[in-house]
């Protein structure tokens, strides 16, 4: 029920104002700090007033740190993550909705289960697998006794090794397998007339043709929103890039930002430069949100349903 009482309006406005202050305050501090000099921070502490050093600080970030390379890494990771997630979810939802697959329900349930097991929970096992992507295969060979057999016959057990740590592929792959996209597309496909697939078959279009000519154009808004959502989440990932990449040249921008704080004690970090870096790194997702806001909202609504 919507009340029109004045007192409620005032209370609501105050609450909202507090909320806005809570969110905008740190952003303001970031910007104002980024525009002051290191010396100002050393003498005055928190920068409550904006200064004039913003571009000097940004130039410092670009010339003196690895942030530009790391932003490129972030770009590659976020973009491939978004692209691969869209492709994978689209195809898996297509298979689940339009084909009679044995155990389709079970498969879908397993895919959904990944939503409840975020990367943060399985980061250790993911690291183990990434350090040798054949380790699951090796384990299977060990457990089934096949390795004992090969050891007997050929003198040595099979042991394959390939590490994808510190590669772009290694950074992207664990992020891609995620059920949200499949769920989103499945929900969307279910809203389409169910005879569409049959009509296309009568018109002579096979499954691939149907996918390209009918399904993809219809799903374009959903694909766009999933792309934006996964791009943003790929860009802001922290834990996995921190673990999965060990050299500064492979790290992503968000990890790189955190690394700008010096490890040694007693030294005051160059906060203006770090904040300028933070502003730079936020520019990409901010631009994206500004331009593709429509799809973002649509995607959030779809995944809520």
């Amino acid at each position, binding site marked *: 029920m919507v009340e029109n009482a004045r007192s409620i309006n005032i209370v609501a406005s105050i609450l909202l104002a507090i909320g806005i202050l809570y969110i905008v305050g740190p952003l303001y501090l970031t910007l104002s700090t980024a525009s002051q000099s290191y010396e100002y921070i050393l003498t005055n502490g928190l920068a409550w007033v904006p200064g004039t050093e913003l571009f000097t600080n940004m130039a410092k970030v670009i010339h003196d740190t690895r942030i530009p390379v790391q932003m490129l890494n972030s770009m590659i990771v976020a973009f491939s993550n978004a692209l691969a997630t869209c492709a994978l979810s689209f195809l898996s939802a297509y298979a689940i909705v339009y084909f009679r697959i044995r155990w389709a329900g079970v498969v879908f349930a397993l895919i959904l289960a990944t939503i409840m097991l975020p990367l943060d929970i399985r980061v250790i096992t993911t690291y183990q697998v990434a350090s040798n992507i054949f380790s699951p295969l090796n384990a299977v060979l060990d457990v089934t006794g096949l390795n004992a057999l090969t050891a007997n016959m050929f003198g040595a057990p099979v042991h394959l090794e390939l590490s994808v740590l510190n590669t772009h592929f290694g950074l992207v792959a664990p992020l891609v397998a995620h059920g949200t996209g499949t769920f989103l597309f499945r929900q969307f496909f279910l809203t389409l007339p169910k005879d569409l697939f049959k009509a296309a078959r009568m018109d002579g279009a096979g499954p691939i043709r149907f996918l390209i000519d*009918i399904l993809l154009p219809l799903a374009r808004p959903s694909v766009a929103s999933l792309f934006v959502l996964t791009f943003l989440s790929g860009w802001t990932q922290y834990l996995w890039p921190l673990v999965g990449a060990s050299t500064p040249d492979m790290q992503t921008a968000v990890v790189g930002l955190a690394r700008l704080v010096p490890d040694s004690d007693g030294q005051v970090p160059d906060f203006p430069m770090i904040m300028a870096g933070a502003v730079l790194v936020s520019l990409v997702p901010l631009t994206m949100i500004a331009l593709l806001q429509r799809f973002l909202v649509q995607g959030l609504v779809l995944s809520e349903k």
Partner: protein
Amino acid sequence: MTAIDTAIRATAADIELIGVTKAYDAKTTVIPPINVALRPGEFTVVLGPSGCGKSTLLQMIAGLERVSGGKIVIGGREVQDLEPKHRGCAMVFQNYALYPHMTVAENMAYSLKVAGVSKADRAQRVGVVAKMVGLADFLPRKPGQLSGGQRQRVAIGRAIIREPGVLLFDEPLSNLDAQLRHDMRVELADLHRRIGATSVFVTHDQVEAMTLADRILILNKGLIEQFDTPKAIYHHPASVFVAKFIGAPPMNILAVTGDGSALRLADGQVVANYADKGSFQLGIRPEDIAVNAGGSIKAEIRYREDLGSHEILETNIADQNLRITMPFGAEIDTEQTLSLSFPRARLHLFDSETGRAIHNAFDDAKTAPTFVKEYQ
């Protein structure tokens, strides 16, 4: 119009189903072996209650469902293992199933595009078909901007553009309102006459079946109850199921016993003379009963329904329900007991166990009663 009439004209193909069955697993058989032959250019309506397997049958002909056994022969070719596009069929769906992102023209031309027909030829064919289905002014629109009837026309246009030998309709009119349904029925009949494709039309609406069909195939639980012209089905139903399914209100079915000379109701009233003994089911249409014309059968009125053009009396006869249709203006006192007579020529007799009709039972030329041939 004459140029258009000749532009889209299909070479009608005959369809033969030989022992076609459909079973999803060992327990659920949707369609037991079915044998039926449809003549080239014939308009067949498959009629039955929901769940009788009529849509499955249609989809098996189309190639959207695999057959579990048997052969489907279209135009002399065995097609049961072919993909839909190689069978020469086109289909109109119940919910239209138009491609929402394509314009009317693109929707209709899609099958030609898939088949690799050149752009110029496609545009020319779309023009012809659009005129035929009355959509020439709507070609650049999207389906979302059209009314239900117009969408249905697009679906029909999309089906006929390839000049298929066989046109399949899956309850295409059930989403339309009553007036539109009537108009589309007339248009469909006209289109069928002009295109000449063999048409199979699935519906549960007996009015559509009676008005459109050359022959009606009545399905019940996957079995063919009767396959005949609308007239024959109305006047000579082959079973109790058909008798009750066709006609509004449906035919009255009364349980009677033959004592060797007459058929009697449970309360002993004689309804007709008949020489055989045993229990039977007697059928008579509500409009065939003669009221207060010196008849000897007594019935009590329970309820009276005035429909303007005629009225329907619900009466009670030997504890069974009997419906009578009366022409408008008939003087009937609701309190009154009616005296009825059942014209002999209008009676139908059915075996009480199998429900199949016993033909010529009341033929006074004394031809021996014959059982109607069963399809299975």
